[in-house]
């Protein structure tokens, strides 16, 4: 028997309130299924199962707050065991020689609502999958079986939509591009959210006051512990802006891209080259990131800020990246973030956007070691081949932890980033 515990979704998360169960006892769940919504200081977050099985007991009632690490759900029959050979005969050794783990997690500081599993009953150890394996997991076979045209697949990826959820109208009931567009239109035509009074100051699932507290704690810790250094440079964006304008001119609005997608992709690629800035620093030692997962700062209407991760930015196409950004912004503002998005950013990118300031000096989000800030894109006088010309330009800054790197390395990183932005077609 296995169990699922209240996950840690960030260094600053201590506990979570279980807002809603999305599964019930007896349900079969697979790895990656969303099982519950947990409200945290950062908002409502969907919790994924990292192992499969049949839901046994819900250990926590809706509305209850439990600390990180507390069991919230028990599994009756782990998928791994079920998938193995026939159950061993009575009296035979358990499939794995390890003794059963202590049923109650050490970190639990108060009893949970439900009793722990009875002691003394041998339980097969359920290997918990490594996070990397989760990330690399291939799409489920069901998803592969979706019959969809190439055009529909591309469009669905661009829109961040799930093909399996669509009904096909094409040859042999294949999902075709028109089906994707129709579905997206229907999604958009969903009833307008209730107009909220401005004084409510609270988007669905978010407690802005709580969030402000969390930001305060994290930033105070950062300034206290991390010896920051800052470097910044101005980057000519003519090539990127021209390319973007040309690309977008040929596309309908729903397929257009924002400059932000180029910034993210260029940053991801530059981080591959300067990996020292992509990772964490804890307990006196630096640990490289297990991928380039960029925490993307998204402002919340009415105040507040959240930086969920877009995973493997370096491996996503610009279109895919754009779809993730769009999806992320929609979910931050409408609620519904997933747990893995908050747990593992390896670096943060913050952009104050087209209405913002020229240069941004960020504060690193611990235990990360760097934050890259993009200012506003402005028309700037630059010297090009010895003559002054007016060009779109952006000021890019790096705030980094001096314990892992120095200013020289920071400068090299910015130079790489700047040169990547000169060849937008290769991003």
């Amino acid at each position: 028997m296995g169990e699922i515990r209240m996950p840690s979704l960030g260094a600053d998360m201590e506990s979570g309130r279980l807002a809603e169960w999305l599964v019930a006892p007896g349900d079969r769940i697979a790895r990656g299924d969303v099982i519950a919504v947990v409200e945290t200081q950062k908002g409502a977050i969907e919790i994924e199962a990292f192992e499969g099985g049949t839901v046994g007991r819900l250990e926590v009632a809706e509305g209850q707050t439990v600390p990180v690490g507390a069991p919230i759900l028990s599994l009756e029959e782990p998928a791994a065991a079920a998938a193995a050979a026939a159950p061993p005969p009575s009296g035979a050794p358990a499939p794995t020689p390890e003794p059963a783990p202590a049923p109650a997690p050490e970190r639990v500081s108060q009893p949970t609502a439900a009793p722990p599993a009875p002691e003394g009953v041998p339980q097969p150890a359920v290997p918990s999958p490594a996070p990397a394996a989760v990330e690399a997991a291939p799409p489920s076979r069901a998803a592969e079986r979706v019959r969809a045209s190439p055009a529909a697949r591309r469009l669905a990826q661009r829109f961040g939509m799930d093909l399996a959820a669509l009904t096909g109208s094409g040859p042999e009931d294949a999902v075709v591009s028109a089906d994707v567009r129709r579905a997206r239109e229907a999604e958009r035509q969903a009833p307008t959210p209730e107009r909220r009074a401005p004084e409510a100051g609270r988007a669905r699932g978010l407690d802005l006051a709580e969030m402000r507290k969390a930001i305060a704690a994290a930033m105070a810790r950062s300034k206290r512990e991390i010896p920051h250094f800052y470097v910044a440079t101005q980057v000519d964006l003519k090539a990127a802006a021209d390319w973007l304008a040309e690309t977008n001119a040929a596309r309908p609005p729903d397929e257009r891209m924002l400059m932000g997608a180029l910034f993210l992709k260029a940053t991801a690629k530059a981080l591959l080259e300067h990996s020292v800035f992509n990772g964490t620093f804890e307990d006196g030692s630096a640990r490289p990131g297990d991928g380039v997962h960029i925490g993307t700062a998204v402002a919340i209407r009415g105040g507040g800020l959240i930086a969920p991760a877009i995973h493997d930015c370096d491996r996503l196409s610009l279109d895919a990246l754009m779809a993730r950004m769009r999806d992320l912004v929609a979910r931050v503002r409408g609620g519904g973030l997933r747990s893995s998005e908050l747990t593992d950013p390896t670096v943060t990118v913050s952009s104050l956007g087209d209405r913002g300031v020229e240069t941004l000096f960020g504060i690193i989000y611990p235990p990360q070691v760097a934050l890259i800030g993009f200012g506003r894109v402005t028309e700037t006088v630059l010297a090009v081949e010895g003559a002054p010309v007016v060009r779109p330009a952006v000021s890019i800054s790096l705030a980094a932890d001096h314990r892992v790197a120095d200013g020289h390395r920071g400068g090299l990183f910015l130079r790489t980033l700047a040169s990547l932005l000169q060849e937008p077609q290769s991003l």
Partner: protein
Amino acid sequence: MSLSEEQIRSVLVEELGRIAPEVELDTIDPDGDLRDEMDIDSMDHLNLMIALHQRLGIAIPEIDYPKLLTLNDAIRYLVARS
């Protein structure tokens, strides 16, 4: 297809409301820059353009974006293009 100014205004107001639900639309200056009036960022703006395209059938090229900066400008532009 030709749409009345009223139809266009109502679609525009509805979509703006979807993007910034907390803003009282009757309180904003119809000749002020919408981005300031409603605290709209580039993603919000893109979503607005997508919505206008899908609901009104008007694809607004990027180079025309400066012609839709205020509520009144946007209505004028859309009426002319519908």
